């Protein structure tokens, strides 16, 4: 299942990042950070497409990387979601990833709706969001 979930602001700094093996968190930071290159590239390629027809799901960012796969998703406000998925779990299909991202997006929208949340701040105190991410991390395992 997902081993790392990250929400990245429009200006490319992390709003939220959580990974399952917490002891090597920095590794995931690097992983997500470098994958932003691809996200940027894909966004700029999509820029030509019409905005409303745009597919938010970016698909697989890096096809081959030790045993992890990274998927990207970008909202209309250029907030990016990156998920690192353990590829040993082959049962995961594209559609499932897609629905996970959609869930993540909905949850993020809820966070944004919180009048006490300052857009651009780190997502720190949202229990609902936290539990949703947790559920995604253990879902299938």
């Amino acid at each position: 299942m997902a081993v790392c979930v990250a929400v990245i602001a429009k200006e490319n700094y992390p709003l939220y990042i959580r990974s399952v093996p917490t002891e090597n968190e920095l590794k995931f930071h690097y992983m997500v950070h470098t994958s932003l290159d691809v996200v940027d590239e894909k966004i700029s390629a999509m820029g030509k497409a019409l905005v409303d027809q745009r597919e938010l799901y970016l698909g697989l960012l890096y096809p081959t990387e030790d045993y992890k796969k990274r998927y990207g998703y970008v909202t209309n406000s250029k907030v990016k979601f990156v998920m690192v998925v353990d590829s040993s779990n082959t049962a995961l299909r594209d559609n499932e990833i897609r629905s996970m991202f959609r869930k993540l997006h909905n949850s993020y929208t809820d966070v944004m709706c919180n009048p006490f949340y300052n857009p651009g701040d780190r997502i720190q105190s949202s229990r609902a969001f936290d539990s949703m991410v947790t559920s995604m991390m253990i879902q299938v395992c």
Partner: protein
Amino acid sequence: MSVPDYMQCAEDHQTLLVVVQPVGVVSEENFFRIYKRICSVSQISVRDSQRVLYIRYRHHYPPENNEWGDFQTHRKVVGLVTITDCCSAKDWPQTFEKFHMQKEIYGSTLYDSRLFVFGLQGEIAEQPRTDVAFYPSYEACPGVEKRIEDFIESLFIVLESKRLDRATDKSGDKVPLLCVPFEKKDFVGLDTDSRHYKKRCQGRMRKHVGDLCLQAGMLQDSLVHYHMAVELLRAVNDFLWLGGPAALEGLCSASVIYHYPGGTGGKNGARRCQGGSLPAEATNRHRPGAQEVLIDPGALTTNGINPDTSAEIGRAKNCLSPEDIIEKYKEAISYYGKYKNAGVIELEACVKAVRVLAIQKRSMEASEFLQNAVYINLRQLSEEEKIQRYSVLSELYELIGFRRKSAFFKRVAAMQCVAPSIAEPGWRACYKLLLETLPGYSLSLDPQDFSKGTHRGWAAVQMRLLHELVYASRRMGNPALSVRHLSFLLQTMLDFLSDQEKKDVTQSLESYTSKCPGTMELITLPDGLSLPPVPLTKLPIVRHVKLLNLPASLRPQKMKSLLGQNVSAKSPFIYSPIIAHSRGEERSKKIDFQWVQGDVCEVQLMVYNPMPFELRVENMGLLTSGVEFESLPAALSLPAESGLYPVTLVGVPQTTGTISVNGYHTTVFGVFSDCLLDNLPGIKNNGSTVEVIPALPRLQISTSLPRSAHSLQPASGDEVSTHVSVQLFNGETQQLVIKLENIGVEPLEKLEVTSKVLTSKEKLYGDFLSWKLEEALAQFPLQPGQVATLTVNIQVKLDFSCQENLLQDLSDDGISVSGFPLCSPFRQVVRPRVESKASNPPEGSKPGDPSHTKVLEAILNFKYSGGPGHVEGYYRDLSLGLRVEVEPSVFFTRVSTLPATSTRQCHLLLDVFNSTEHELSLSARGNEELILHAGECQRMAIQVDKFNFESFPESPGEKGQFASPKQLEEQRQEARGLEINSKLGIRWRIPSLKRTGEASVEGVLNQLALEHLQLAPLQWDVLVDGQPCDCEAAACQVGDPMRLEVRLTNRSPRSVGPFALTVVPFQDHQNGVHNYDLHSAVSFVGSSTFYLDAVQPAGQSACLGALLFLYTGDFFLHVRVHEDSTSKELPPSWFCLPSVHVRALEGQA
């Protein structure tokens, strides 16, 4: 083939490889100087054809790579240039021998070689040799380039001959099999006669010819050959190169060269352009019209040497489209991937493909190629090669715009430099590489970039990088650098550090700075990068900066010039909105108070400590400009995560002018920081520019009276430095001795004293404070340290009577004096009316208060000046607060008058009340003393002459000018009060306390009493038998007519009259009964009623009549005045005619 050349690009396929090497002892400097000159000859147009020859120079080339030369001819060393140093002819044979040995290394592939000898002169040098050139020195070698050109031309001749040889050699006899090193053993024992083998040979040869064509500058031909090779090799499944990829790659290269004449290997692009074939702007641009150009026969330059370039193969078809290039590259790489030993080739192919894709701006596909390259497993790489590999990967990622990936690999390379397996870690290289990763992590080392707005970039990875920079710079042995990085980390990442990290970072910072304190200087690295200073503005965080005014007593004031200060000289208008606007802007920066040269000035900062531990800030001082300023640094210790904490920084301006406070400096953890206010985010600042005026003296005052804990009413608006208080009985006078000491450094030249009474709800009579300034001024100018004295008399005269409720009506007519609205113009200024009204109710409730003490407060203002500040027109204002508690002594509860027997006198009846707790004696002028016990009330009668108020001089003219009639009247009354008071001269004495004072009647005198006390302007004199009859009883004889004359003297300023006077006789029975029925006892001679016509001012008039008493007895005559209705307004007291007492006696006859 084991050493990959990461710098390879597609264009390299068309180049000839020439190795330039030193032989013997050649200094690196000299070698590279010549090498550079040689390299400049990279492109040669071969004469008599339009073909262009490209040369690739290497100063180092592994011979095993050379062995792949048959596979791709650009890998083959075809030329060797040796550079050597030879000083004497003796060494020459030896040197030449070495050259030959060098040639042996690449001997199998060399077309030609050259030896450049430097330093040798003499006969050997004279010998003309083709392969050896002699130059006297490294400086004097003008012919190097020419030599190289010649050399290359000779190379070309060989190449061209080989090409022609191979191209035409298709007679079908025996085509030799070209193979790569690792293949050799595979072909042992293979049937060389089989068709399959032949095809393979042909295919490989075809490809080889293609390579040669490409090198020889025949692009079109090479394309054709490549196509043919591909077809041939595909048929025999010779995957490595026979099977296509080499050929495919060649095809790709040729196409790339055609499509992108600017070159793909960025660095070399410029060199190619230099050749002049295309303008610079054409580089890196895809040429969409390439295929059309191909078809145009006029544009073709092939010379038809090669019969195999059959015309039926469409030229346009030969050249691959950009998309095809990538496809072919993919195919080639997949073929290469089948051979373990071809890893380097595969890697290089990947690199080449990436470069092509980068130009096509297809980053995603390029990243896939790169990704593939990352996983190509070469043999065990040395650390150095790993570093090179990662650096190149980083560069390639950079090329396709993946700056994060690039930074990642660069960082990996940096870490590789200092891998634990390396014996001598290259910290310098590591640091340099780490610095290069900074842009990838969107990190700049300028703290200014972080001061505004939110944090940019990925804090976690940035922090990691900074930690690594710190560590690398420390291991490099540059502590200044590591301190700079560490303070940068602390400054910019403070929000992201955990408490433990904060502690760790600060601890290591402290340990570093103990060796090398952090400074505010720009650190410039050898490679030109400069690290701006990092002020630790967040340790502590400053929220508010406020320049403080001097304390009130030291505040300089500007003497009023002739023009008002606020009037701007620039504009003739009193008010203009435009000016007001600009002034407002100006004011926002400049603060409207002044500092004084030589005096300690203060700036208050509100700071807080964001750290989870106590923060020690040392050497905290102000940064100023404009004026020489001696800052007095402070050290402070802020508790952990303190709230806003006020800190006052002080300093002394040494010169005059305009000073602006730009910021502050601190030393925290051994790092010096200069924090400028402009750069601080979220700071509240109410201006930072202040004028400093010249020095002024300082005055200190001390008094004979005790200091008071009470401060004056806050509403007073003045700030008073010292307060003294004294307790006095009403009417008492006391002296206050004030010592004035100059405690400054400037002489005190001017002094002015003014006073201001604050509590004005009380009616105050007489002068409260009086002094003689002359005595003090006689000692001026007061040098520093000297003392002068000033004596001030305090006199209190208050009206206590109205406090008492028992005094409901003081006067006969019930008019309460206290109810009279009393307001002098002076008081109106000090206290607005509203306030006096508001204070009335408490006053009403006051009688309940047993003490009845009233408080008088006054401020003595000392305006003084001297020294240079005086010249500039400044003075200082020192205030002394004076609080006088007034206890009631005696007061008059009631006042009334009784007419005395004489109309010129009257009796003043005063009810005196002793409100003290002491026995008190009271004396009026000349009268005997009256002893009053505590709380006793007695009546006191004083006979006074009536006053002629009219004769008083009017109050000073200038006051009368702007006073209303009411105020005038009041003033007049005050003056009268004073007059009466001085006439009466009532003094009290408390023997037990030995205190004396005056008792004043001013407060209780009312209109009516005053009128009674006033000498009426109409003077009535009654004369009996020509004698004025005042108090004595006039005697007359029964039966004799008694002459009665009533004389009226008009002293009023207007005419009065007419009057009617009626004389009414009566007898007083002394029991309250007046008997008016005396018709039988008294008869009038003539009329009993007299008429008086108008009496002019200062005129006199008299009425004459006579009375006849028929019986003896005491009679009184009452003269009544009947007024005409026209003159009703005259007060009745004007008509108080004395009663005439007549005693009728028995006639003697």
